[in-house]
Every structure is written in structure tokens, then in C-alpha cells.
């Protein structure tokens, strides 16, 4: 395994690196297949959580034959502890637009949508103003591509890609069966490339500079850097772009308050890493991946309360359609309450862990499937805190 140390990077928010006119007029002359090769070569994986190779996603969508195709920028950013997409859209929206346009060019789409988290509506006015300029530029460049914004209505599940499509189609945000995957049947059941905000910015960078510079960062499995949202018991909460592949211990050294007990990597749906595992935990796809959220807990925190909060969140935010998730979340939540109150014996936690394992394999979408991550990691590592 490659060993990296913590390294700050300045790609995403670097100003003056993106001149949409220059970049796009050049890119629109290129062969789309070459662009895809660059993205594949860069090793870029999706930054929205699932980590699917972006170049492949574009290739699959390009290969579909359809009159209509779509590019969607997933800006629903609902994962607790994540706030980096907001900052990107606020600071460097043009980089996102360019990424979408390049994607549109590559896959053969004429329409792009930004699905913007409802709580981020304060960004609407400025984003729309900038989009007007950008869309005008597309016209000028004689590129038939237009971006518009759709406002989300406040459910975490609408960040899941297929629920997002349903929501955009005016229906209830419920995840669909997969397959078919979005690359074949996404928005309006047409081929759709859906990418996270941050992913799109990296595609812009790779389009501009080629894959080499991006590839130089990170590890074999986790190329490049990513933007982290650091929160919790840290004196320097905020947004940081860091190289992938660092050991969690380095991260805690830089961001912790000296008394760090655990770090929740990847938000409520991520894993809780206790102090004894900091050194052996790599932040990246080979270790613990994260959509960017890093929540730091010091010894004053009750891990029961932490888990309880997460389970309350999932119990409320489950779309409710599938049994393992709708009922499972409630059972996990009420179950730890019952154990805490002594109404169930401590070994009921074993039943609950088995249930969480079932949710992981039987729930319909990533939400229900990931509840086991925080549940099992917290119960395994902080069992006493749950019981007593």
C-alpha cells in the first residue's frame, strides 16, 4: 500500500484557472472519445459517495443511442456534515458549468440540469445570472447545450440519483430498481450522466490540463485530491482540499483538538473510526471512502447520542418504500433505546447488528444499505457507551 501523508491541494477553488470561452472552444474541437480516454486515464472516481469511475460513466452514456440525453449535476448535498458543494457553487460555479458542458458534448446531450438542494436556494439568483452568461456563451460557440436549475424540496433521499430523477419528473422521490442504470435510463428514462458537483470540477481540470497532473496526486485506487468538510470537535472547522490516500492519524493530527476519540468518515452513512484504528485507516477508496464529510468527536461526546442522532436521521429520511429500511431503521433506533433503558438485554445488540447486515444486502438503495456502516462501527467500538 502506498503511504501518503497529509497534503493540502489547491485545485478546486483556484481562481483564474478556468476561462470557459477558451477552454470550451478548444475542447469542442476535440474528439469526444479522446476526452473520455483522458478522464478514464486520470482515474477520477465520483465524489458523490458511490465512487464510480467518471470516465466509464460518460462512455456508457455516450454509447447509448437516444435522441435525448441529459447531463445532471447532483447538488443535493444532503449528507450530514457535508457542505463543500455549496462552497464550490458559490465560489467557482463556472468550473461546474464547464464540466457539465464538456460532459454534454461527450455524451451528446443538449440539456443539463443542476439539481440544487432546497436549502441552497439563496444561491439561485447569482447562479441563474451566471448561467445566463454561460448559456449565451454556448450559443455563441454554436454548441447546442443549455443548463438550467431545478430546486430540490428537502428530502435527503432525493440526492440518490434515481430518486432525484423521479423528483425532477414531478413524482415522489423514491429510488428505482436498478438496472437499468442512469446511463441507460435516467431522467425521463433517457440516458443520463449524473455527476456530483465536485466531480464535474475535476473533469474541468482534467480537460484543461490532461490527466497527468491529476494522476500525480493520490494513490493507485484513489487518484487525485478531494474536498473535505471538516466539522465537530476541531478548532479549524471548514473546507479543505486534501490529497487522497492519507492515514486518518495524519488528518487527526492536523485537525483534531488533541482529544479526538473517534472520527465519523463519510457522514451519517459513513463509518465511525475509533482512536485505536486511526493509524491503520486510509482515507480513500482502498480504505474508507468519503463523500467529504469528516466529523471529529472528542472524549466529551457520548457515542450513544451520536448513533441515536444518526438513526433518528435515517428513520426520518428513509423514503419509506422498502421494508428493510423503513422498518429496519425504526427497529435499530427503538432497539438501542430499549437496550439503554434496560428493556432489552445487551445481547439484543447482536440481533440488531444482524438486522443491520440484512439492511445492507436487502434494502433497495444506498440509504438503507449504508445504515449498517455507522451502526455496526459504533456498536462494535463503543458497545459500553451504548449499553450503559
Amino acid at each position, binding site marked *: 500500500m502506498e503511504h501518503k501523508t497529509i497534503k493540502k491541494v489547491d485545485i478546486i477553488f483556484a481562481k483564474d484557472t478556468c476561462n470557459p470561452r477558451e477552454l470550451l472552444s478548444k475542447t469542442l474541437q476535440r474528439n469526444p472519445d479522446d476526452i473520455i480516454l483522458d478522464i478514464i486515464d486520470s482515474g477520477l472516481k465520483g465524489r458523490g459517495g458511490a465512487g464510480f469511475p467518471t470516465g466509464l460513466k460518460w462512455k456508457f452514456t455516450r454509447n447509448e443511442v437516444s435522441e435525448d440525453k441529459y447531463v445532471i449535476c447532483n447538488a443535493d448535498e444532503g449528507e450530514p456534515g457535508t457542505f463543500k458543494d455549496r462552497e464550490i457553487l458559490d465560489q467557482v460555479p463556472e468550473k461546474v458549468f464547464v464540466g457539465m458542458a464538456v460532459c454534454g458534448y461527450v455524451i451528446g446531450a443538449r440539456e443539463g440540469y443542476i439539481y440544487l438542494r432546497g436549502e441552497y436556494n439563496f444561491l439561485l439568483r447569482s447562479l441563474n445570472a451566471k448561467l445566463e452568461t454561460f448559456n449565451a456563451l454556448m450559443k455563441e460557440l454554436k454548441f447546442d447545450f443549455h443548463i438550467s436549475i431545478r430546486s430540490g424540496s428537502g428530502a435527503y433521499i432525493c440526492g440518490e440519483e434515481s430518486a432525484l430523477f423521479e423528483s425532477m419528473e414531478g413524482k415522489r422521490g423514491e429510488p428505482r430498481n436498478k*438496472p437499468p442504470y442512469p446511463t441507460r435510463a435516467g431522467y425521463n428514462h433517457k440516458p443520463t450522466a449524473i455527476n456530483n458537483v465536485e466531480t464535474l470540477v475535476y473533469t474541468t481540470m482534467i480537460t484543461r490540463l490532461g490527466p497527468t497532473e491529476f494522476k500525480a496526486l493520490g494513490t493507485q485506487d484513489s487518484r487525485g485530491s478531494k474536498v473535505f468538510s471538516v466539522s465537530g470537535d476541531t478548532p479549524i472547522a471548514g473546507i479543505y482540499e486534501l490529497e487522497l490516500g492519507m492515514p486518518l492519524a495524519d488528518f487527526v493530527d492536523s485537525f483534531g483538538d488533541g482529544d479526538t476519540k473517534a472520527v465519523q468518515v463519510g457522514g451519517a452513512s459513513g463509518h465511525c473510526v475509533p482512536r485505536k484504528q486511526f493509524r491503520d485507516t486510509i482515507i480513500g477508496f482502498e480504505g474508507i471512502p468519503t463523500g467529504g464529510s469528516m466529523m471529529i468527536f472528542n472524549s466529551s461526546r457520548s457515542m450513544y447520542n451520536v448513533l441515536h442522532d444518526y438513526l433518528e436521521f435515517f428513520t426520518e429520511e428513509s*423514503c419509506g418504500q422498502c*421494508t428493510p429500511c423503513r*422498518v429496519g*431503521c425504526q427497529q435499530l433506533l427503538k432497539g438501542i433505546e430499549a437496550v439503554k433503558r434496560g428493556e432489552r438485554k445487551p445481547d439484543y445488540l447482536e440481533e440488531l447488528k444482524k*438486522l443491520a447486515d440484512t439492511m445492507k*444486502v436487502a434494502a433497495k438503495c444506498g440509504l438503507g444499505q449504508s445504515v449498517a456502516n455507522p451502526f455496526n462501527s459504533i456498536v462494535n467500538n463503543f458497545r459500553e457507551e451504548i449499553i450503559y
Partner: protein
Amino acid sequence: MSNYMVNLKINNIPVSVPEGSTIVQAANKLNFRIPTLCFHPDLSVAGNCRVCVVEITGARALAAACAMPVAEGMEVFTNSAKVRTARKHVIELLLSEHNADCTKCFKNGHCELQELAAEYRVGDHVFLDLVKASDKILDISSPSIQKDNSKCIRCQRCVRTCEELQAVGALAVACKGDHQRITTFMDKSLHNVVCTNCGQCINRCPTGALVERNYMEEVWDHINNPFKHVVVQTAPAVRIGLGEDLGLEPGHRVTGKLVSALKHIGFDSVLDTDFTADLTIMEEGTELLTRLKKAIVDKDETVTLPMTTSCSPGWIKFIEHTFPELLPNVSTCKSPQQMFGALAKTYYAQKKGLDPKNIVSVSIMPCTAKKFEANRPEMRASGYQDVDYVLTTRELAMMIKQAGIEFTKLDDMHYDSIMGEGTGAAVIFGATGGVMEAALRTAYEIVTGREVPFNNLNITPVRGMEGVREATITITGTRPEWSFLEGVEMKVAVAHGLVNAKELMTAVRDQKASYHFIEVMACPGGCLGGGGQPIPTSADIREKRAQAIYAEDEGLPIRKSHENPEVVQIYKDFLGEPLGHRSHALLHTHYKPRKRY
């Protein structure tokens, strides 16, 4: 489905199925049954209950076999340890939010959840009880349907039924997470929303969450009351459906045993809705010809065409809500059930020398909407509620069992008289297209003096299960008084299932299609697929029922409504003529617009 075959292995046994098949379909081919709950053959695939999960080699997660398409080289395990644990968990979870008081439940013994629980022997409950007290409050606002949220497993079969088959959308999913539930617009009671009472959701609800309002006890009480004369009428589709609830295969005709069973149960007089179905043809056929005459000869612009049928109360409520502007198109005829009811407490009472206040009029219907219809204020032409109780085919089957009758061993018996005589034309009312066919058989003969020009009276173009069907019949050789119809091409259309009715009526409303006469049945397949028929239902089962109906028609000596001797008699003795004064008072009505919200 594609011709391309995909090879896979299920439980190590190779199988080839067409590309696009699901794992459930492939497993069926090998006779491996994978349990399902949210799946229903009439509906889109939801994949939400997760009881059908299976293991696929190489995949991290289990897959929902109802939704997962097969792939070349796939290796599936339907009963591995991982699958069994997950499936059992799913069943236990469903039960943990379920008010499982089976012994008091109407679906006891007919419940898919109960069957699964029994199969997996989920005995002592591991998980905590999550049933909400508020969910135990029943919605019995509708005279047709009872909704019990505490028995709902959120499979959404009802929601898909109401939307995909009926285009009504009375039921929807609301809220998320632990508050997610199946409800109506603004949580109103079912009686106060656009629900048509068609009962199609009941037919597809796997549990006791949606069932008919049942009136068996009330009917037993009247049967056992010596001062009451209890008459019962049976709709055409009951005789081809009932057997399914009593141990027979779909497609069995049990007319004679049905009559026997009703007599054993103790009804004072066992009569046939077929009689008033024939009467409907006389009234409705005459109404159609009258409208045509007014339009063609008198150039009366107030006449509305096309005329639509009115015998499906689900359709009536639908049009009241959805196409109120088309209400003038609806025939003024009451449904056969209500014609029967009005005559039972007038004509029948007179003939039998009974005081109508002592007559209790019961009908056995394949339909839940007829329960609502019987309670309509329009339906009191006799001075009393014309039909007192409406029982579904399913309720009758339960009463037969309660009475300890061995149904399959019963001798065949004949309906009583009067109002017990029906023709083949009346029997086919039970299938989509049947009213149209019956009407054409009679109307054509009235106008031309000859039988309809179809082999053996079988008007095949209006038969079948296509959602909307059209036919054109050119009228030639008219009798002198109908010469204005000479050469007219009668354009007719038939729709069944409200989603198809909506499509057809939208075209009519927008003047994109023109017809003279339209038959609409609210339920898929017509009454034979009605919301009160035995469960389960599927295209295959409905097809078998349809075949039975047409076989019943062909087997009857009289197959044209106007030749029904009791119909001839009632016009002579009581009604005078079709659309006459008495007919108007007893057999016709008008409906009023309703709001959508």
C-alpha cells in the same frame, strides 16, 4: 419480449429464458417458487417489499428477484443462508409494524402475509412492536370499502392499481420514513375523495388493509326473520367466478349450484339480475335509437351523442368526478341491479301480493361499487331503498361455507319466477363488450327485422381484452319506420378499466373521435374482473372467466334480450313500453357532477 435466449443457473440448475425476463420468471420455469408480496402480474414492478431477495454470485447485495433481469452466465441462489436470513428478517419486520390479529381479520385464511408468516414459522417476535394506535382507527366512511392502516404493509399495490389500471389516483403514498403511509388526498376519508369504489385495489391488496365493507351478518339476520321476505338477485359474473372461492378452477360455470346454495341458505326467492340486464337492453337500446332519431331526423341539437352505457357504478362515479361535462352522454338507464331493486318492491311485490316494506332486497355482485350505488339517494324509486344489501361474490362464498354447504356436491337448480329468467345476451353483460353485443343484437333486429350479420350472433369485434376496441356496423335493409338509419355506419367503442375509459372519453371530449355508442366497464375485463370477485386475479384468470361467460351464452336457448319471455310479459303487464311513463319513474335516473377535490 425478445427472442434472444439468456442462459443462467438457478440453484445450480441451468435454464434458458428470453432476454428481459426477471429472475422470478426464470425460477418459475424451474418450478422454484420465490415468495413475492409487492409484485402483482397486472401492475408495474415496484421492488419495495424485498421479500423476494435472492443471492447472485459475485454481487455484494442481494437482488429483488421480481425486478432483476436475468443475465448470461448469472448464478442465482433462491434459498441460501444469506437469503433465508434476509427474507425472514423482512417478514419479521413487516409483522413488527403489523396489527396481526388474524383471527378477527376479514382476510384470515386469504392473506398473503399470513401465508408467508406461516411458511417461515416466524413465531416469537424478535423485534419491537411498532404498530401505531392511530392506525387502528378504521376508515369505514365508504359503504363499499374498509381501509385499515394497521394492516397495511406499504406494498403500494393499491396505489399502482388505482393509478395504472384505473387512472383515478385516489390512493397515494404520503410522507417518508416512519411516517410513510398509504392515504388519500389530504388524508380525507375514502368516501370523500375521487375513489370510484371499484374495489380493484381490494383485489390486489395482499392483506386485510383494504377489504369490502361486509354485510353478511345483516343479511343472515333478515333471512332468519320470519316476517321478512328476502329476495336475492345474482349478477351474471357471479356464476362464473364463485367457484374459485369454493375449490374450483377459474372458468367453472356454477349457475345451477349457485341457485341451489342460495336456496339452502334460506333466501325466500332466488332471482336473476339477468332479467333486468335484458330489460336494460330494451330500455337502453330504445334510448339509443331515440337519440339517433332525434339527431338524424329531427336535427335536434340538444341530443348528446355518443351515448355511453351506465351499468357500471364505478364508471358513473368516475365520470361524475372526471368528465362531469359528459354526463349528458350517459344513458339514463339505471344499472340492472337498481332496475331489479326498483321492480322487486313494486312489480314483484304486486304480483306476489307482498307489502314492499317487508321485502328485503339483496344482491350478489362481482362488484364493490354496487354497494355504494345501492345507497345512492337516486336509488329509492320504490319509495324504499330499492336494494337493501349488496354482497360480493366473496361474501357469498363465505356464507356458503358458514352454512356448511358442500358446494361442489350440490344439484343444479333453476331460478325462481318471476324475474328469474335471463338470456344469453344478459349473461355476457359480465364480460367487457357484452353490453354492447347484447344491445346490438337487439337494436339491429328492431331496426331491420333481421338478426345481426355475425356468425351465430357472436359479435366478435367487440369481444376480447384489448383496452379500447372499436367496431363499425353498417345498417342495411331497414324497416320503413327506421329508414332514416338506412346505410348508417354505426360506430361503437368499448373500454374496460378506467385508464382506458379515460383515454377514450378524453378523445370524445376533445372531439378527436366520434361514435354513436360507447360501452364502459370500470373494471379490467368487465364485471368478471370486478372488485368483488374472488382473489387472486390476473389476465389469465380473467380470460378463463370470459370464456366461461361466452360458453354460458352459447348454451342458452334464448340469446336475445327482446325474446326474454318475462321481459315481454313485464312490458305487457306493468311497464307498457320501453321509455314509457313507468320505466321513467322506476328504471331511469340522472347523475350530478362531483368535484375532484
